[in-house]
């Protein structure tokens, strides 16, 4: 009886061993399933190519890719953050992309040519419209630490990648000491730290905090997603044009050096930069397209307006994350 039991377990275990069809395009996606799956389904329907997606957080997938090494089954890394793409570039995980891909985006191409931008979002200050008006808010994010009135009412996400991308830009544009002073100044205002933007925006809507340093689409998702009359009193605030507080953040994808299916990976990248995929990002995810000529919904700023908000900056430099992390550790945030 007992050997029968072990045989059963063995059979159950071996049943799982059948491997997937070898020609499938394998995508490691740091973007969540809800945003990725509709696009993957369309790509499969249009090209007839099999696609398999492993979902995870950027960091987990990067760690997995590095542990897998040369044996990784992945073809394409589709990341949620520029920082993760930078880390992948630094770790030599990505291969150079052909011009046919690189020439498609109208802006935000990385100088390395190792990955292609897919969508853009902007850093913003979200605020509670019942507690504050735009006049109460500073013209530059650099002035935020002087806002004594906001003591204890500010939310931020010091451990979240997009916030760290912002600090990297702050450091590179304004200098190390200015960045340190900003972090310490804001800390003195006793902000509330959240692990990511979603719980922070929920806290903003719930009145736990009155302003939040976040990305624009979290706010739109909250306000546009709500039923008529039920939208919480939360709105977007942009700093003055060119302010680092409006930094554009790029999501993107790159082909992995371990890929044995480069052709399919490149077709998928092309698809991501096609008009329909870009329009999906704008209408369903509230992000900005990176190719020109794609219409954006009325509740988004127009592309030129949005682009004018962000400071001039080589986005490839966001991979200089180490110094940012050291700075944040020194001031006790990590």
């Amino acid at each position, binding site marked *: 009886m007992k050997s029968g039991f072990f045989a059963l*377990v063995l059979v159950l275990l071996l049943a799982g061993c059948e491997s997937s069809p070898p020609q499938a395009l394998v995508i490691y996606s740091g973007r969540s399933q809800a945003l990725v799956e509709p696009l993957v389904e369309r790509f499969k329907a249009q090209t007839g190519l099999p696609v398999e997606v492993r979902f995870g957080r950027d960091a987990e997938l990067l760690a997995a890719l590095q542990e897998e090494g040369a044996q990784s089954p992945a073809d394409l890394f589709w990341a949620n953050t520029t920082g993760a793409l930078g880390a992948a570039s630094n770790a030599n995980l990505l291969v150079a992309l052909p011009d046919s891909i690189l020439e498609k985006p109208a802006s935000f191409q990385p100088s390395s040519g190792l990955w292609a931008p897919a969508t853009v979002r902007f850093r913003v200050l979200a605020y509670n419209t019942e507690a504050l008006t735009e006049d109460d808010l500073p013209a530059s994010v650099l002035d935020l630490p002087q806002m004594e009135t906001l003591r204890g009412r500010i939310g931020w996400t010091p451990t979240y990648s997009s916030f760290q991308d912002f600090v990297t830009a702050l450091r590179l544009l304004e200098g190390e000491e200015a960045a340190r002073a900003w972090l310490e100044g804001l800390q003195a205002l006793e902000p509330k730290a959240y692990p990511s933007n979603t719980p922070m925006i929920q806290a903003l809507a719930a009145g736990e905090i009155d302003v939040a340093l976040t990305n624009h689409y979290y706010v739109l998702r909250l306000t546009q997603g709500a039923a008529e009359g039920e939208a919480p009193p939360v709105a977007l605030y942009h700093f003055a044009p060119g302010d680092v507080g409006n930094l554009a953040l790029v999501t993107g994808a790159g082909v992995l050096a371990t890929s044995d299916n480069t052709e399919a990976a490149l077709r998928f990248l092309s698809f991501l930069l096609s008009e329909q995929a870009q329009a999906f990002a704008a209408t369903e995810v509230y992000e900005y397209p990176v190719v020109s000529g794609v219409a954006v919904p009325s509740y988004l700023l127009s592309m030129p307006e949005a682009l004018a908000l962000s400071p001039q900056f080589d986005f490839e430099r966001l991979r200089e994350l180490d110094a940012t992390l050291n700075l944040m550790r020194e001031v006790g945030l990590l």
Partner: protein
Amino acid sequence: MNRLLSFDLRTAAFFLLPALLVLAGVLVPLAYLLIRAFEADAELLRTLVLRRRNAVLLGNTLLLAAGVLALGTALAFPLAWLTTRTRLRGRRVLAVVGVLPLAVPGYVMAYALLGATGGNGLLAAVAGLTLPRPGGYTGALLALGLTLYPYLFLNLRAALLGLDASVEEAARALGYTNRQVFLRVILPQLRPAFLAGGLLIGLHVLGDFGVVSLMRYETFSYALYLQYAAAFDRVYAAWLALMLLALTGALLVLEARLLRGRRFHRAGAGGTRQARAVSMGGWTVPAYAFAALLSLAAVGLPVGTALFWMMRDAGAAAGWTALAGALGASVTASVPAAVLAGALALPLAYRSVRRPSPAARVLERVAYLGYATPPLAFALAFIFFTLRTAPVLYQTLALLVIAYALHFLAEAIGPVRSALYQASPRLEEAARALGRKPLQAFFTATFPLLRRGLLVSIAFVFLSAMKELPITFLLSPIGFETLALGVWGAANEALFGRAAPYALLIMLFSAAFVGLLLAERDELRAG
């Protein structure tokens, strides 16, 4: 006597195979962490490891573990007592209240607590009630306490059911008051159950990431995850994981010391008798109020919040095929993992209870180290070693099942061990004296007494595997979409309406599974 101790080859294999698997399951992650840890640059390491922040994290972690243990005991003990020792009506329903929260993933509870409170929360929308949003220590304490107390409840309930009333009666005959009987006779016998449940809760708190991050309370495991997530730093993360394991080691030594040299099975012959149930009298109403409040908070809140989300964003839900697929995937991985863990736990617990040698004790403790290894590091280690030793296993269901079983093995050991403590070895000795071979004697004499404990073991692992995230992310076959992944993917993007059906399915099916087990156990009692 010599004949009774001798092992034939099959018996040896029966113990050796699980032992080797367990050792591998623990040594692999440990070796991995050491390999990564020693890649560190000495200077950077000194500033990272020996800094004040780590002392703060240590303090936070211990404070939270102590709080959750206290809250868990305050909830579990009265409930276990009410369901086993009183004539209260609806004891079975109360027992369900004690077990059901196991079906609620901690992160769902945290989302529910946050979603129900505050100005635009569920309670405000439904009842016009604005409660302050829990956060920090209080928030983490509530979410963890409400989801983890069943580990103590089940252990205590099993122990109370297994106690032999004749010992209490003897004490009473000797003139002990009820209070003395409770303090000197009952409580000491509950010690292994307390320790087994408490250890699981403590280890859960040490390893939790979902709840503490949502509640913004910084513990070791939170900091550890941040090193992977924020810094993409596998080296410092490895050091934090090793510090966490050292803490676990201390906890294990403590538990072992508290348990040493005690014997809990009955000494005499004859069957165990159930204790006389007491009537609650004036305490009936408070007892019901306690149970009602607890079930509202631990079960009503997460289920209600999920239903609320689902109705609010009715159009957002994924299709039935996606949901059914995710349910299928979750069950396909969790059931074999639970059975495998039970099969591994049985010989380990048997050795450590019946033939306590240093080796057996170490082996059993080692399983707890595997449990305390942060799941993310555990999964990375399995990637690292699988690809170097058996690449064909990588990204197969088999690997996922093995990883679940080895990671959650510790949960399976406690209930079997408690059952073993209460099963007298005399029966098995008698069976052997009558000429049965050791294994035969074990399966005919002792095994039937362990079924109750073994089923609880399997249930524990099943429930944990259903909720697990990082191991599933990294080790499942590509395209394998479990319910837990569905909840996480959607909730993370604030698509709560889409997350809700996945969360409800996890809770529903876990609850159904637990219900089946409870029914089975009650039948055993009657029969």
